[in-house]
């Protein structure tokens, strides 16, 4: 990294969050772009997890960022700003996919115990996954291949830490559907990861 680039980066990071927020509340373009520069990569990662492709992820990011700017005056600076903006982007992604007509959950109450039984048989594979140190981008690729319902529940439950009740409320599904979707998603994820690990070992 060149010294000038380092200086610029350090200058950007030196701008305090509170100053950026205050500037954004006054609709100052300079501060809005500073906010974007600071948080866009993190928010884009969130969008990539929820989106089916990169173009959709960029759309989600753009829409989400405008929503952040629109609602920034409501931010009271009590909680974590990062968590607040992340929540806006996640909610935007959920709404985006809820609007899609193709977005459907399989409303079948599955026998969850059968997944628990299968779990034991997957133990070997999971151990291999843990040892493999798979790249996040590879996991994102696997996520993209998952059906919308699986991906949403997996993201919300495993990564963003929502409970099944919250997921059911947000997505407008029953708690049992949320649980069944998660079990199916896990199973699919493990299988797809196994394929990637096999490919890596072959190389």
């Amino acid at each position, binding site marked *: 990294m060149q010294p000038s680039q380092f200086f610029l980066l350090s200058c950007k990071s030196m701008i305090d969050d509170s100053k950026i927020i205050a500037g954004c509340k*006054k*609709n100052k*373009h300079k501060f*809005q*772009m500073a906010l*974007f520069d600071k948080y*866009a*990569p*993190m928010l*884009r*990662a969130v*969008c*990539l*997890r929820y989106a089916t492709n990169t173009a959709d*992820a*960029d759309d989600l*990011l*753009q829409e989400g*960022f*405008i929503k952040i*700017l*629109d609602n920034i005056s409501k931010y009271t600076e009590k909680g974590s700003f990062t968590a607040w903006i992340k929540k806006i982007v996640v909610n935007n992604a959920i709404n985006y996919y809820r609007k899609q007509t193709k977005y459907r959950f399989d409303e079948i109450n599955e026998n969850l115990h059968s997944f628990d039984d299968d*779990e034991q048989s997957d*133990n070997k594979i*999971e*151990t291999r*996954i*843990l040892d493999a140190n*798979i*790249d*996040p981008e590879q*996991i994102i690729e696997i996520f993209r291949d998952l059906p919308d319902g699986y991906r949403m529940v997996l993201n919300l439950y*495993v*990564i963003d830490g929502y409970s099944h009740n919250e997921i059911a409320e947000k997505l407008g599904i029953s708690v049992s559907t949320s649980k069944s979707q998660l079990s199916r998603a*896990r199973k699919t*994820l*493990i299988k797809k990861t196994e394929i990637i690990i096999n490919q890596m070992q072959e190389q």
Partner: protein
Amino acid sequence: MSKNKLDKQIRKSFENYEAPVSQEFKLKLSKKITRFNFLKFNLASFNIFYLTLAIIGIVLVLSVSLVAKNKSNNDNSIENNIHLLKKEPNIKSLDTTTKENNKKPIIADTIKITKKRVNDSETNLSNSEQTIDSSNTTKITVKTDSQIINSDFINKNQKPTNNPDTIETQETKKTVYDTVVSNVNVTIKDTVKTVVRETIKIKKPRKKDK
């Protein structure tokens, strides 16, 4: 391995993950933010609300100036009308801006002619019984008032001629009332309405038997 371990593994891999944003996307978003700021109300910067106010102001100024201009034009036209009416002593307060404008000289001429004829006939009758305007008396006795006026319109340039034969015949008749009725309703725009009604009755003295 429990489910929690797998979840932890996935969570860990995404923990510090950041996806870089392209410069092109940044420019696109910058433009969108500019548009967003323009559409959002803010006292500190120029936006659509200020623009709307400016447009409303311009429209108001233009409309007020146009109204004022029209008003001044109307005033001028009224003044012109008054000026023209002053030139016509017989017809006061006729508006020249109306479509009656074209009829105005005709009406004025008609009234003048009829008045003149009446005066002439009066004087002629008083001076000499044989100097009655024959054409005038003939028309008056035979035709109705409106017909008289219409005929006056048509024959306004014709000068009355003395026809001794007609006079002879008229003289043999018993009584001749020379009645000229000018009944012209003139409707005028701009709240000026003038009714010219003039009735002149002239009684011709009975001719003494020789």
